[in-house]
């Protein structure tokens, strides 16, 4: 029974970690995705003007 009290908080922590990460909007990834689509729609050179994206993670 003691094991249960160790495993339970662990499981809760593991689950909450997944949820927390998934709610946040991935701003850096969105900028990259936007740039890729903009380049294609406007048919620009790929190396034209790279986004000044700073990875926060």
């Amino acid at each position: 029974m003691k094991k249960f009290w160790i495993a339970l908080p662990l499981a809760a922590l593991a689950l909450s970690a997944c949820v927390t990460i998934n709610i946040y909007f991935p701003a850096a990834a969105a900028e990259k995705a936007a740039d890729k689509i903009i380049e294609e729609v406007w048919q620009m050179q790929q190396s034209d003007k790279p986004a000044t994206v700073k990875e926060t993670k």
Partner: protein
Amino acid sequence: MKKLLRYTTAMLTLTVSLNVMAAADLEVNTPGVNAIKSSMQARHAQLSAYYASGAVGLTADGMIALRDASAVPMAARQSVNALVAAENQDRGALYAEIANANAHPEWQAEIRSTFGQRWIQRAQPGWWVQSNGGWMQK
């Protein structure tokens, strides 16, 4: 004790794998996104002249707008209006499609504003873009 160790390891593996998945790029390579993209690509051939003349400008909210109707010959005005409306419809659909493709429909507003900034940042010199509510030439 052995069981607990196994359980903990399994839980840790699961957490790590889920985190890696969540940290991955925003998914934009779906049939829906690609269809909208090619429709916008084709329309751009007609729109680019109007961006250059200043008749059409890029708005801060990721759309386009007829900025100066007098820069368009009378005969072409109706077709420009139709182009702007069709483009905005595609853009709205694109933002919604990306949000839905990533299973986060609530991200639509953030995706739209990210695109708004990037369209403006990458606009060509001479094009008109909206900044702080007013129009500005790049």
